């Protein structure tokens, strides 16, 4: 059986490419060695948050950014891809109620109280927008060790906001009953929030402690499959606007995103194989004909007409540096650009400095096809998306999910255009 498209990697880039293709009726299989990206990042779509200072409007900043950084993934994409991908994403994941856009970044509080620019946020996080200032109260839950509202509030109150707005922030600590287990993960709390009786206790304890006009910030644990109902229920019960603040991984918001996208993929008849890592390729000249994946018994080849490599960067192992300092792309051994050679320093001495290896990854042509050693696309029908690409330092630019979404969408678009 030959698939129309084989997507390697189940992060946001891979799932986006796969879903876009599957909904156009293509036979798609996603092969991934595990679950990654979505569960580690918050569910917001950061397109461009910082470019030598916070970015107010990605729509205004992007063309110039892309022109200045032609090697950045944003510099490789046609101008309409980023806005189209956001539009598509918002529509497809309609049950998560994403809001925002490229015109103006929202400013959301991080778990340490930094005001971070981001373009698209799920409805459960939108009320945390700091752009107009406001009064916020942050709720800590005893037993959740990944959220410190007092620390957050103290920093947030001193955050520099545009337009001279200011934020008043304070913290409140709740101690819901937990049973024998005192160390409950974010997911554990999310499951508890899905229960009405738990929510009622929370509302009962919290409501009398709220001041008028306060917007209530919880850690991002407000439910899993029924997040919308949980959030609406809390807003109704507290009589206040409520929002979530993302905390340490695993990200509950990311889990919701993963569940929604994989459910959508399954509905479209796509196949998802998790726990099988791609290890090699079969080709016919410049055409990739199949990728070889490891299974329990013997390797299995997934044949396809088009392929998307969305295996992630250094954190997922899609790129790696061996003990002799050589950088490699680990699945197809494509050449890695931007990595210092063995013996050259890869990192600067200051933790927050710019590190020589930071933007390393695959260089792609204008069709998002990774280049081989000779500077031409390695294969005519192989595309690359996400953190595998060179040129971006997503945690500094606040561009992670934006790069994944737009390049995943872009790669799928290229495949669709090429399909008869």
């Amino acid at each position, binding site marked *: 059986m030959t698939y129309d498209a084989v997507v390697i990697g189940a992060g946001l880039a891979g799932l986006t490419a796969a879903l876009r293709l599957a909904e156009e009726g293509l036979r798609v299989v996603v092969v991934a060695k595990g679950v990654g990206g979505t569960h*580690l*990042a*918050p569910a917001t779509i950061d397109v461009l948050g910082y470019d030598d200072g916070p970015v107010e409007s990605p729509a205004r900043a992007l063309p110039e950014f892309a022109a200045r950084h032609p090697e950045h993934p944003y510099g490789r994409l046609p101008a309409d891809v980023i806005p189209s991908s956001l539009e598509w994403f918002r529509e497809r994941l309609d049950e998560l109620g994403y809001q925002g856009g490229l015109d103006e970044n929202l400013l959301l509080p*991080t*778990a*340490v*109280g*930094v*005001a*971070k620019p981001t373009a698209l946020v799920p409805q459960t996080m939108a009320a945390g927008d700091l752009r107009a200032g406001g009064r916020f109260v942050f709720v800590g839950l005893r*037993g959740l*060790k*990944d*959220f*410190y509202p*007092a*620390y957050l509030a*103290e*920093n947030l109150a*001193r*955050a*520099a906001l545009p337009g001279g707005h200011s934020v008043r922030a304070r913290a409140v600590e709740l101690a819901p009953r937990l049973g*024998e*287990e*005192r*160390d*409950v993960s974010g997911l554990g709390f999310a499951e508890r929030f899905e229960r009405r009786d738990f929510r009622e206790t929370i509302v009962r304890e919290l409501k009398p402690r709220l001041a008028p006009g306060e917007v209530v910030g919880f850690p991002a644990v407000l439910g899993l499959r029924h997040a919308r109902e949980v959030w609406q229920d809390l807003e109704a019960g507290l009589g206040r606007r409520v929002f979530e603040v*993302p*905390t*340490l*991984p695993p990200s509950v918001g990311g889990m919701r995103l993963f569940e929604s996208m994989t459910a959508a993929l399954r509905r479209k008849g796509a196949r998802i194989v998790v726990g099988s890592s791609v290890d090699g390729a079969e080709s016919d000249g410049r055409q990739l004909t199949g990728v070889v994946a490891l299974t329990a018994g013997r390797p299995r080849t997934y044949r396809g007409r088009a392929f998307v490599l969305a295996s992630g*960067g*250094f*954190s*997922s*192992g899609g790129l*790696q*540096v*061996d*003990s002799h*300092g050589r950088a490699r792309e680990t699945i197809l051994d494509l050449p890695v650009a931007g990595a210092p050679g063995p*013996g050259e320093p*890869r*990192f600067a*001495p*200051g*933790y*927050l400095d710019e590190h020589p290896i930071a933007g390393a990854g695959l260089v792609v042509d204008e069709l998002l096809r990774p280049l081989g050693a000779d500077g031409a696309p390695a294969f005519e029908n192989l595309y690359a998306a996400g953190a595998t690409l060179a040129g971006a330092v*997503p*945690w*500094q630019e*606040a561009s*992670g999910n934006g790069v994944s979404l737009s390049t995943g969408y872009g790669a799928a678009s290229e495949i669709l255009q090429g399909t008869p």
Partner: protein
Amino acid sequence: MRSLETEVLVVGGGSTGAGVVRDAAMRGFSAILVERGDLAVGTTGRFHGLLHSGGRYAVKDPDAARECVVENAILRRTAADCIEDTGGLFVTTRWDDPAFGDEFEQGCRETGVPVEEIPVQEALRLEPRLDPTISRAFTVPDASIDAWKLVWGCARSAEEHGAEILPYHRVLDLEQDDGKVIGALVKDELAGEEVRIRAEIVVNAAGAWAGHIAELAGCKVAVLPGKGIMIAMNHRLVNTVVNRCKPPADGDIIVPIRTVSVIGTTDTRVADPDELEVTQAEIEEMLDEGEKLVPGFREARALRVWAGARPLFSAEEVASTRDVSRAHALVDHAERDGVEGFITITGGKTTTFRLMAEAAVDAVCEHLGVDRPCRTQEEPLAGSEEGRFYWLGSRLRAREPVPRSEEIICECELITRDRLEAAITRRPTTNLDDVRRVLRLGMGPCQGGFCIYRATGILHARERLDHRAANSSLLAFLQERWKGVHPILRGDQLRQATLDDWIFQGLLGVQHLPE
């Protein structure tokens, strides 16, 4: 200005200083210890973690070997809780001369190091990761020792006997009167004020910095810092201390200590013990040497690399001072330099710290004209009374049967919230770094990726730090960690570091914290 008076003022909070202040206090002297940083941040906190059996010195330095034999047994009796009885192996690899094994065995027998040659199969059964081509193997009673437990144990014991322990007190000057050192002027770094300490005698136990301290009294102690690097590998590739059976050289020991295994070390003379740079060449050398003992070492995950400075003294000192052995030096400045009230004890190794302290306090007794016997060879430290060695699985067992019945703040090192808060309570002037050292917070594979944010939040919640201090503590930790991590960032640890970057910079945005 605050003023303190005491009989014995000890400068230096490493194992030597802690041993001296404990011994002095136990012998009934009033004593104060000052250390410019936290206890054990110098050489003691950066060494290999090895409690020598003496085997390493059996051929080259028999006196040192004999000392190790005696002290090893004493520490096993009195500081059992700080020690893991890993045992030691000396193995002959194919890069080593098998004949040296005979010299080695002979040297051990002559110096009293308990040694036994075992069949190679037995060694490989004990340590399956060893290179199977080894030709000879010997067992010796090496062990691994927890420096912080040891130093803090001594400090606590000293306090119990009336001593005062003052970390973050930097010596600015040694005050003299008519050719006699009468005390020191120190700066309390946390309170930001100066303190004058008057003492009958000042003991310079500043290790690699002993020369700097001696200079303040106009004396010259030529301590030449010998830099050695060490790399901690993510898990215990071996559970026994493994030594190369050859004349001592670089990178020939792997020590399993707590959850990691540490390879070391190198030996480079440096000028300044505060400037210890780790070079790529040294790192490659350690990894290559490790590979000779444990095939696959190079590809195993390396957590961090650091350097310590051995306090080596020049040979001239040996000839012209009264010393107990070549391994360490006790300098009586009254005799040598005409400066009364001042002695220096330097050189040595943590394994013989108690012996050095005994020598120093014996000299103190002489100076003060009293005869009080030393009891540190008998008296156990708190927690070691029952002679039970540290057991690796203890933290794991302690969490059973409901492991998450308490919040676990640092998952890699299984540190619960209660333990963290107890550590904070015990030391009122604590900061994140002090806590980190004592509990090993953030020292596991994730190198603080998850726990440091939690610990900062807790410190802030407990009102130990306001937000500003919490922010700078967090950033300082990240920088300190980075120092030890970026030189060996490759493979798995690079993946970890990238994830940590996503967390700290991407998710939390620490680089944008308000000033």
